[in-house]
């Protein structure tokens, strides 16, 4: 990770968000978001619980539709795509859920095979086995192949969740609270994994978190989301030194390990 890597307008954008608004019934969650993610960049979106961080990445992957504004991912406007085009785009995006969202009725092997079997029907058994082995190796859990999700620890579940997205070789990774609910040592392992994934698979990532260590260790830039708007987007130190009271208060109450 190179923290001094500034991104310029000339670089290839993989995600471009302009004037994004989203409300749920009477509750306005996002109120005019603008964001750009460049190829090969890791960006953390920081903010308090309920500030709309997860809503933002659900809009990027088309799980939610914006009320207003544009979300362009890999040169496609997400809310204007038909279901087939949206599926094709989703195959290029990996989404790691906060809860890992492993299919609990399936074994680890079946969890990993499932997206491949459903989307790459031309693949043979051997190719699928190789792909499963490769991603399990990437997340360091080769020995868990035949276990059930319920048998795994929180950190292992997160790793398998990430492996399941990696099996489709995504260009963009969206991590929703990758270190939440984990002990500090496991959190460090997940941070390392996020960096390894970026290097090995050459992905661009958005990491939703309120874990400052995770943001500092894994990201080139961070964006502070407060009350539905970005207060500041920039390098970690740049945002950390901001004089904005809300940002200062956020950093003050989040201990950097």
């Amino acid at each position, binding site marked *: 990770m190179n923290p001094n890597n500034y991104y310029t307008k000339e670089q290839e954008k993989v995600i471009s968000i302009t004037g994004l608004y989203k*409300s749920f*019934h*009477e*509750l*306005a*969650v996002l*109120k005019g978001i603008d964001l750009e993610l460049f190829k090969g960049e890791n960006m953390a979106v920081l903010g308090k619980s*309920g500030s709309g961080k997860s809503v933002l990445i*659900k809009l990027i*992957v088309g*799980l939610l539709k914006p009320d207003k504004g544009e979300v362009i991912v890999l040169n496609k406007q997400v809310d204007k795509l038909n*279901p087939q085009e949206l*599926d*094709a785009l*989703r*195959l290029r*995006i990996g*989404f790691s*859920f*906060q*809860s890992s*969202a*492993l*299919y*609990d*009725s399936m074994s680890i092997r079946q969890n990993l095979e*499932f*997206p491949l079997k*459903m*989307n790459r029907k031309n693949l043979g058994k051997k190719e699928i086995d190789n792909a499963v082995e490769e991603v399990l190796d990437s997340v360091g859990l080769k020995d868990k192949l035949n276990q059930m999700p319920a048998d795994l620890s929180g950190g292992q579940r997160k790793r398998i969740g990430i492996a*399941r*997205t990696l099996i*489709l070789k995504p260009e963009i990774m969206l991590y929703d609270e990758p270190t939440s609910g984990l002990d500090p040592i496991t959190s460090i392992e997940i941070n390392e994994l996020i960096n390894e994934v970026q290097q090995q698979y050459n992905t661009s990532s958005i990491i939703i978190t309120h874990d400052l260590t995770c943001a500092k260790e894994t990201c080139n830039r961070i964006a502070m989301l407060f*009350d*539905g708007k970005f207060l500041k987007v920039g390098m970690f130190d740049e945002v950390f030194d901001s004089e904005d009271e809300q940002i200062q208060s956020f950093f003050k109450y989040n201990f950097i390990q």
Partner: protein
Amino acid sequence: MQKTNLKKYIFSKGVDQYFADVYKASLFIVRFFKEAVRPPFHIREIINHCFEIGLKSLPLITLTGFIIGIVFTKQSRPALEDFGATALLPSLIGIAIVKAMGALVTALICAGKVGSGIGAELGSMKVTEQIEAMEVSAINPFKYLVVTRVIATAISVPVLALYCSLVAMLGSYVNVNANEATSFITFIQNAFSTIQFLDIFTSVTKSILFGLTIGLVGCYKGYNATQGTRGVGKAANQAVVLAMFLVFIEEMIVVQVYNWIRLY
């Protein structure tokens, strides 16, 4: 978080919500029929669910059907004895079981066992983001989870209903044989003497409708579960209550339609 105060209710919150729910359920049903005829069909998944729904319900259906056959025969005998008409017992049982009881009892058992299972399973998948995980992996969760389960219930319930009717007749025969020493052949001949093809056809059609209802209600409630684990329990509970209610309503409508068909 800022709250905007723009929304007004057309009638009241409750009434608006009711119509919104009816509309949402209608869209769900329409989507099922649209998705059911479009490939891919996930045949293996449908077979798996038929096994789960059908085969695993067999012990309960067998026990219930057999007991119903015995009890119904025991209860009917005194009334027929008063008129010296116990010979009509097999016919009476045949009519009651094939026309009404077999399908209805099976549907009620399945609403309780299968409907709640589907509601809880999909509800749990919904609140643990497993359904969203399928969506972001470019897998159509509606097709994979809902369509396969509803088709499986629509296939399994009629088969179980016919089986239940058969077992109930067997139960009835055991009682009739013990009291009147009627042979099995005579019993079956008498039982089916008053049953026409239309009766069996109606019973099967009705069971398919019950199966669709149980599957659709269970899936709808589970697929739209909210509020975490509490929502899962609520989805399972509502799936049973609503499916049973709808089964009775449908039974009433089908009987009426069947009578009109017979008249014309």
